[in-house]
């Protein structure tokens, strides 16, 4: 159907690269966030696939002229539904025609990429030069630029390279008023060599995204690259109780070794191994409940040293090494877990379990209090009249799970606790919503808080958020980039992270 906006978009990107056909639009209507929360799919009114900054700029100016919402999508998983339209509008798909690796600056350890460049693409080229960019808890199908902006799933590159937002050296952004805004590497055209501070001038780039709205479309990003080790090693050990696995994790973290370090509980690992609920149930029943994965990379000497220490600590705390003796467990070497080595999910193939998230929370707690948080979670589920009765969930809908990542010099830990279940059964859904609220209440009663996004409380300074907000108001008075709250209050906060 032709209309004024459609015709103008055709002129901007060319008729081939714009569509308002429902058959095209539906493919942008859902992501894993809509899937896990059963929100109804929602489509944009138009999709455009630009090939240049100028086309993005013109599209944004057009949206502003007509005061219609604009959404930005790249590739890979979108777990938070940020690009799922709240009420129609234009969706800009940045992943298809803006996918150039503009520069790999080996000397200065940085790469400049367009938003369509995925981690797999960039790492394939960097590896040839002995470099890599860490993949923050996501499959390598995701866009480097948008993943870093959105803080990935666990908010960190890895243990050694630090938080995700530190991996960016500069953005080029088309703001809602159509102006181009450059920060970090490109902020000072007379001093590009030295502008490696990514957070200015102006409001920091890390406040450019998230649920309270975006400020513009990133058209280029400059990212940090790290030297690639010659050796990789992942040590996987298994534990039967939460106290011991937490102690082992804490000790390793406090020795400051390992690139990737986490423990998985319950379905968080069994779901990677099983294709179906009942087989997962079996794996859960007959397997140790907790799995500690510690991985490292570097020179041969360093890796051997770190591996030795990791093994010692795991063993001392009651960890068992099943994987070497029991080959099926090697399956995890192909998953996210092994990928906690700094190459992170580059090597991950089975990224998703067959189940989808249900009750969950992200808790930032001290390393010592991890077991307490997990026990509150377990108690919430197991003592519940409905969820505590296995007959109500014969397919083990509520298997417990957790992932813990130490952070900030191992003072604190980000603990993600989730149960998983089938998302289409209305009885289960009702109970998930009820238990989700109950979990948060129980956590609060013990002084813990579930944050919507893991590292947010740490990395977000309230006064800077204020600055970002007022800046956004200035450049986007009509709110074209954030037309409504994404998660209406009536829906539970699923507490799940983004990629």
């Amino acid at each position, binding site marked *: 159907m032709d209309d004024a906006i459609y015709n103008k978009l055709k002129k901007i990107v060319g008729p081939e690269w714009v569509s308002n056909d429902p058959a*095209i639009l*539906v493919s942008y209507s859902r992501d894993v966030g809509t899937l896990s929360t059963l929100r109804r799919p929602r489509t944009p009114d138009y999709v455009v696939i630009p090939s240049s900054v100028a086309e993005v700029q013109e599209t944004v100016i057009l949206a502003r002229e007509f005061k219609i919402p604009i959404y930005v999508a790249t590739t890979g*998983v979108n777990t938070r539904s940020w690009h799922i339209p709240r009420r129609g509008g234009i969706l800009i798909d940045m992943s298809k025609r803006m996918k150039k690796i503009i520069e790999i600056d080996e000397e200065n350890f940085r790469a400049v990429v367009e938003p369509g460049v*995925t981690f797999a693409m960039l790492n*394939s080229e960097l590896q040839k030069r002995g470099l890599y960019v860490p993949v923050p808890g996501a*499959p390598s*199908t995701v866009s480097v630029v948008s993943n870093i902006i959105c803080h990935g799933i666990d908010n960190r590159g890895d243990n050694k390279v630090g938080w995700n937002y530190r991996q960016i050296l500069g953005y080029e952004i088309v703001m809602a008023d159509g102006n181009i805004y450059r920060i970090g590497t490109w902020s000072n055209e007379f001093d590009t060599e030295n502008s490696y501070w990514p957070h200015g001038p102006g409001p920091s780039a890390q406040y450019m995204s998230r649920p309270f709205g975006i400020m513009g479309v990133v058209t280029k990003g400059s990212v940090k690259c790290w030297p690639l080790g010659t050796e990789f090693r992942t040590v996987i050990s298994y534990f039967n109780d939460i106290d011991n696995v937490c102690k082992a994790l804490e000790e390793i973290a406090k020795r400051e070794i390992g690139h990737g370090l986490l423990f998985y509980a319950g379905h968080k690992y069994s779901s990677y191994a099983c294709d179906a609920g009942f087989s997962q149930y079996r794996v859960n029943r007959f397997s140790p409940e907790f799995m500690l994965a510690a991985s490292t990379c570097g020179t041969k000497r360093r890796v051997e040293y770190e591996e030795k220490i990791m093994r010692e600590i795991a063993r001392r705390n009651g960890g068992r090494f099943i994987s070497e003796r029991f080959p099926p467990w090697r399956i995890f070497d192909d998953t996210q877990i092994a990928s906690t080595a700094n190459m992170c999910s*580059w090597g991950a193939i089975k*990224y998703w379990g067959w189940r989808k998230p249900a009750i969950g929370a992200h808790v930032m707690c001290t390393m010592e209090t991890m077991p307490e948080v997990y026990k509150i979670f377990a108690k919430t589920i197991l003592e519940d009249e409905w969820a505590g009765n296995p007959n109500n969930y014969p397919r083990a809908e509520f298997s417990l799970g957790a992932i813990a990542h130490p952070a900030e010099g191992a003072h604190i830990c980000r603990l993600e606790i989730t149960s998983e279940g089938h998302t289409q059964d209305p009885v289960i859904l009702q109970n998930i919503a009820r238990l989700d609220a109950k979990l948060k209440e129980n956590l609060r009663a013990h002084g813990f808080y579930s944050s919507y996004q893991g590292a947010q409380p740490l990395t977000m300074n309230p006064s800077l958020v204020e600055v970002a907000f007022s800046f956004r108001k200035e450049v986007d008075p009509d709110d074209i980039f954030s037309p409504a709250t994404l998660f209406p209050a009536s829906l539970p906060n699923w507490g799940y992270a983004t990629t």
Partner: protein
Amino acid sequence: MSQDYIWPVTRYSLEDYYEEVWTHCVKCKYCQHVYLPDTVDHRFHYQCPSGEVFKFEAYYASGRNELIRALLEGEVKWSDRVRHIIYTCTICGACEAWCMFSGRGYPLKAIEKLREYAVEVGQGPLPAHKKFAESVQVNHNPYGEPHQNRFAWLPSGFAPRDVSLIESGVVYFVGCTTSYRRMEIAQATVKVLEHLEIPFTVMDGEEWCCGSPLFRTGQVKGGVETLAHNIEVLRKMKAKKLIVSCAGCYKTFREAPRYGLKLPLEVIHVTQLLAPLIKELAGKGKIKLKRPIEKSTYHDPCHLRLFRMFEPPREILRAIGIDLAEMPRNRLNSFCCGYGGGVRAEFKDYALQVASMRLEEAKSTGANVIASICPFCKHNFLETAGVLGLNMKTYDVMELLAKALGL
């Protein structure tokens, strides 16, 4: 109850796939890329031909999945665009190879089922596909060629034998494309088999189209009819082993049980039969092999990729001394030639565009020969190289082997 969540490939209704889309398709986009750690060149990281050409999400498996949902829910009505999305999939199956590990879905089977559904509700197939279905009915091949010419390529002096007299019971199923379009492959195959004194026979006038073009375009009823005829004839012949030259025939025969047809014999590609033999005979000095060309790259046909059939053709190429330069996307990561799924018949420019993408990759290896073991792939590459004026020769592995044997 728990059985609900096993997802065997035998569950086979569009509603099943609908549920799968709702609960499994996490939009992880594994279906768009090669196996991630195998990304060796950023230019060749993608694997879905239709998505790469038409670019909107709708043209990838994840989008087609969503189309199934929207069609069944009535959110989207049938239109030319819907048919375009459905029929531009080359049925290459790259998506499914990776989705099985990720969302644990079966997007290839879902799209095949969607085509079947389109035919059921009178919205498919497309005109060119209808035409070849009519031709299969009349001529037993999709090309409108007279059936009596099917074996016109046979070297003089060759007469089909009685398979029951052949101990190994080998029957060579030539296939329509090899018989009518790429006869040189059939001739090379027969010459090699004869030269190596491998007793075999052909089905002669009883060989009909295997049904692949019909199955791939959703015309399952016609597909089952012609496939059932072939299987019945083979059963009567008491054949024990079927050798094929074509990846499409291979997939179709191997998948016969999915359509309720019992397969009374083993189906293999001719290179699977020959690879061990060539190595053995050459090792014992019983055959002399002369390298026919210096260097070649090898293209894995999609329908063989589905069955993880990668090594025999490579073994033959190596045995005859060819320097094999692998493309960045090989084996499971291979990229489609663009011919399949009824695409070439209806969208020729698009088919040639996909082939040109693959040829660009072939060129990046430094070879100027691309070898394969499927007449469709060869045909599409040949024509594309001709249209673009590329210095890229295309051979079937059997042709190279025949040359190496001096035939």
